[in-house]
């Protein structure tokens, strides 16, 4: 499945998105673990304190479910306004 990245996380990972081999349905926690395996040198930037997750463009929690066709994104805490 595809995962999108934004802002500082996109620059750190040097990827705008990545295709992960994850069995669905999954959870945000599972995807986060898979990302840490995919980018082992950037685990700190990917942990729950440093990277928020959104599923279908809505902020998600660690146990939010992800199904086929869902849009998943990870990004740093937001700094707008």
């Amino acid at each position: 499945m595809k995962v999108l990245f934004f802002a500082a996380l996109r620059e750190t990972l040097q990827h705008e998105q990545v295709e992960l081999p994850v069995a669905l349905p999954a959870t945000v926690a599972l995807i986060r673990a898979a990302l840490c395996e995919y980018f082992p040198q950037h685990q700190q930037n990917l942990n729950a304190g440093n990277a928020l997750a959104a599923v279908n463009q809505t902020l998600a929690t660690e146990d939010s479910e992800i199904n086929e066709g869902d849009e998943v994104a990870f990004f740093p805490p937001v700094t707008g306004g």
Partner: protein
Amino acid sequence: MAEVYISVQKHDFDISHEYATLREDNRSDGAIVFFSGLVREMNQGSKVSGLSLEHYPGMTEKALHAIVDEACQRWPLNRVRLIHRIGQLAISDQIVFVAVTSSHREAAFSACHFIMDFLKSRAPFWKKEVTSDGERWVEALSKDQQALNKWQA
């Protein structure tokens, strides 16, 4: 239901146009509260010469609508206008505008403050500043997260 206008845009906005729209044919609202956020020269200890604002297209609009809808459920608002800019900005430029109208001032003050607090922690915008030491991403502040506590039911 409140009349809601939300825009995420590169170009600047004109608050006198926004204000006129809030007042037009409006005989019932006694209170307008608005917040305007500007680019400051000093931030997090460095002198800033400009910034760029990135966002998550699609999610941004969805998040802003959800925040405004929540405000409309909590307070009797009649009109809400929210504009957030993206792209390159200079010192003193306008970044964000939130205005609400209501019959009474308490609702208008609370709702405008609520919308800004949630926008700060929930809407997917990220600022990258240009400082004398080069470019840097702005750090999220724990006080912005804590600001949400006052709105718990």
